[in-house]
């Protein structure tokens, strides 16, 4: 199990995130979303702090984290790559795009490259079906990605 020891600074940052949602337990998913945005992943220690701040059980927080494939307890790469596998993207060849990324990065879906630069994950529909197949690198959206365009995308971050 990955554990981290939060610096006081980061701890305050996390508490501020909870506070920005009024420490409301109904906002758990939003808090987790934001926390993952800041820390890159949601290790157990982070979940325990969030549980305490929102006054819910750690088991419940873990239940939510483990339910949604978006959330991860493993550290992601500097540039997390997400490939949409929603229906539209899928029928337009997203799987071939995944294979291409796997080939170039030499990792499987859910893993991070040894240098910590890239990680690979899949998601279901980003709501941009008109651009299918869609790939996200960090917050940047790439539309109509063809397998032979993968190399070019990766070069942008090299």
């Amino acid at each position, binding site marked *: *199990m990955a554990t981290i020891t939060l610096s006081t600074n980061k701890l305050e940052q996390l508490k501020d995130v909870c506070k920005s949602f009024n420490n409301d337990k109904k906002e758990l998913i939003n808090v987790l979303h934001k926390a993952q945005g800041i820390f890159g992943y949601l290790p*157990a220690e982070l979940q325990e702090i969030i549980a305490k701040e929102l006054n819910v*059980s750690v*088991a*419940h927080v*873990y239940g939510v984290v483990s339910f949604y*494939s978006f959330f991860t307890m493993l550290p992601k790469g500097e540039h997390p790559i997400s490939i949409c596998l929603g229906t539209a993207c899928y029928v337009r060849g997203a799987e071939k795009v995944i294979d291409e990324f796997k080939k170039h990065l030499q990792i499987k879906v859910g893993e991070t490259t040894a240098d910590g630069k890239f990680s690979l994950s899949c998601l279901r529909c980003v709501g941009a079906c008109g651009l299918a197949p869609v790939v996200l690198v960090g917050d940047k959206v790439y539309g109509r990605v063809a397998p032979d365009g993968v190399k070019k995308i990766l070069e942008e971050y090299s």
Partner: protein
Amino acid sequence: METIKLKIDGKDVTTAKGTTILKAAKEFGIHIPTLCYLHLEDLNIENKPAGCRVCVVEIEGRRNLAPACATDCTEGMVVNTHNIRVLNARKTVLELILSDHPTDCLVCAKNGTCELQTMAQEMGIRELHYQGEQSHYREDTSPAIIRDVDKCIMCRRCEMMCNEVQTVGALSAVNRGFMSVVAPAFEMNLDHSVCTYCGQCVAVCPTGALTEVDHTNNVIRALADPTKTVVVQTAPAVRAALGEEFGLPAGTLVTGKLTAALRRLGFNYIFDTDFAADLTIMEEGTELLSRLNRHLKGEKVPLPILTSCCPAWVNFFEHQFPEMMDIPSTARSPQQMFGAIAKTYFADKIGVKRENLVVVSVMPCLAKKYECQREEFATDGNPDVDFSISTRELAHLIKQSNIEFMSLPDEDFDNPLGESTGAGVIFGTTGGVIEAAVRTAYELQTGKKLENVDFKELRGMEYIREATIDFDGLPIHIGIAHGLGNARKLLQDIKDGKSHYHAIEIMACPGGCIGGGGQPLHHGDSSIIKARQKAIYEEDRNKTIRKSHENPYIIELYENFLGKPMSDKAHHLLHTHYFDKSKETTVE
């Protein structure tokens, strides 16, 4: 009240708006089978995730079958609960559940009391048509509860008990799809979680996914060992429920048969935890009066005092309210007081060495299994109480030993640790510990004799109760909570400085020990718990002595051994301290 007319199985039915098909059918004598559904009427809590789909019914005009537990009746609805389409669907659903369930029923701890097994029997399942992947998880054994999650059918009753009723938060549904399961945070073992071992999850689990750690074999081995003297103590709530395991109606007192059965099992001394309950009152009552009188003198003392008999409750505040550990009484639970006295005073009396004396307890409780394993309750590694078995385990033991329970004569407990008062008996129900304490504290504080020992204002089943008892002009405010969710409310009030009570009784299980996690399974039927409560008060009424401080053997114990309540010796043997466990749950 707005009513609705509908047809169920051809019958014209009128029911209140908002009633589910399941309930409306039940009102008219139609029993729709359920598996995940559980209704705790008294708590007004309903578990209806509509996950198992066993209760599906056909509603004319709808394309799909609907789960009866989670579908409200509507005007003019026509419902069929057992036509061929429904029956086939129900069988298919059940077979699919069984396709991902082990078929080791013959050697399963729940064999005979499993709701899934009963349903397969009732539905006439004779063949499993579906064979697919099965989910496998590692078994998780804690000091009190075993999780064998391969047998989990995701009814989520345990999750409801743990979170909504007890507000412990040890269990949650995790992961998704085929991998989904109920587990502690990070899928760690239960003993790394905030679990209190109250056992309410075990009490409602329909299958063998959650069971108690079985100590019957340890007991059998001890009984067979000629070098050991084996002493047994039985908790008050056991006598009000054990009969159910032998087909007697709920609320039948079987105290006499219980002692007879224990004697035939080969225990050398048949003693009563009620004796130790009387002892608890002497210590806890004295502590209450000491704190109260110092408070009246203007000293700053922690009040209210909280009872500390219930081990799940102790675990609860150690995990969740560590900043308030100075409030509960330091008195050990009756189980542990009994063990401490048995292995010192009594062992000396009969000339048996501590290590050759085995103390077994029969408890309505699973947390007691953990409690007797706590390090502070052992001397040089030898525990004060060696094994704690549940009411259910005792029933198994009796059945295994060819004892015909129903034809046993009524026998008595042995002396000196078997003599108890009515005050000791009522420890088994919510409100009982504090009533027992009041009976003694009143007389000690006022110096006057209580004419009427029945404090009806402290009795009942309401989840949070309060009463003010007049101590000869001094009003004593008392609070009572059962179910840890209700205890949490009273605790939060104390934390917020809003509590005006002098003393609060807390029991972790709904109903108190009579509704404990080790009792015969009541499948959510609260009338069973009420019947047991009635039996407890009946036993109290039948006792000649009903105040703990009048128990002659308690008086003798203080005269010959302990000195007086809260003496140094009493402190050493009968009191304890608590530990902050809030940090222990962090991931390794």
